[in-house]
């Protein structure tokens, strides 16, 4: 079965913004509501991988990344996120460590 692919820079914006829609354009909340969550659910239900490419943007704020990956984990749990999501970040490989931390910390919120 073919994996699903999503690129933040090509499918959403080269200038990812804040955490919430009320804070400004191209927020993580907007990304999740318009594109990301639907694809994640599809991948999860069909037992596929969702490959998200973070390259090609001008940079990410902590809130955007935390809302995207941490928020996803708070909703679906670390296990589902880890088995479904594959993250590509060749420009900024260190982001993968940051994101693992957000997922780990957010899972505590999911378990509660």
């Amino acid at each position: 079965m073919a994996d699903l692919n999503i690129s933040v820079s090509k499918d959403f914006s080269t200038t990812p913004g804040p955490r919430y829609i009320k804070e400004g354009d191209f927020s993580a909340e907007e990304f999740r509501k318009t594109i990301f969550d639907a694809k994640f659910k599809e991948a999860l239900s069909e037992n596929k991988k969702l490959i998200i490419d973070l390259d090609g943007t001008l940079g990410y704020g902590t809130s955007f990344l935390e809302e995207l990956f941490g928020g996803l984990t708070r909703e679906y749990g670390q296990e589902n996120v880890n088995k479904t999501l594959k993250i590509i970040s060749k420009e900024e490989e260190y982001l993968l460590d940051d994101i693992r931390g957000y997922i780990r910390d957010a899972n505590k919120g999911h378990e509660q």
Partner: protein
Amino acid sequence: MPTKVMNNKIINFLFYLILFSFGLWAGFYLLLLLIGNGISVSKQVNLSLNPFDLISLVVTIFLAVYVIKKLNKESEAERIEKDLLIEDLGNFKTEFGKEIIEILKQSSLKLIFVNSRLKTLRMRFHSTTNLIEKYKPLNDPSVVARLDTDIRDVRDLLTDNPEGAKGNLEISGGRISLEAERKSQIEAIPNKVSEGIFQIIVEINRK
């Protein structure tokens, strides 16, 4: 090749040749002393020349000069590597400090601008530390991890407003407003980064 460089090379070569020749003769007479034959200066000078001795001498001199030059070259290459890495780290430290000052000068910051500048800085840092890992791996790699945490902390302090958290950072219309407390936390980080970079430079220099 410039004349001055060529002259220096010739002078170096002659210097090492003379030094080696002197060492050879000094070693010969020392050997005579050690085996107790004493030293006597004959009135007659024996001018016979053993070709094998001559060849051996020439080969020995050649090898000595070659080894010295090779060691010099390797030593110079190593010094150049160290200097380049140290220069790169120094430049990063300066750039990082300047960038933070520039950012904090502004009363309201465009989030996209901050994201972009911090991405560039952090990528630059990792590019340098990857080179260090490749050419002069550190005995204590945790100092690099700590530095990366400090640099990431700047991004967190400038762009992270956790859900439910209030105060000292607000984002509205894509712009960041920082309260004094958040600003002073950010201001402290360039000093920590400076200290970390100093540690790395000292370790590179000692290698």
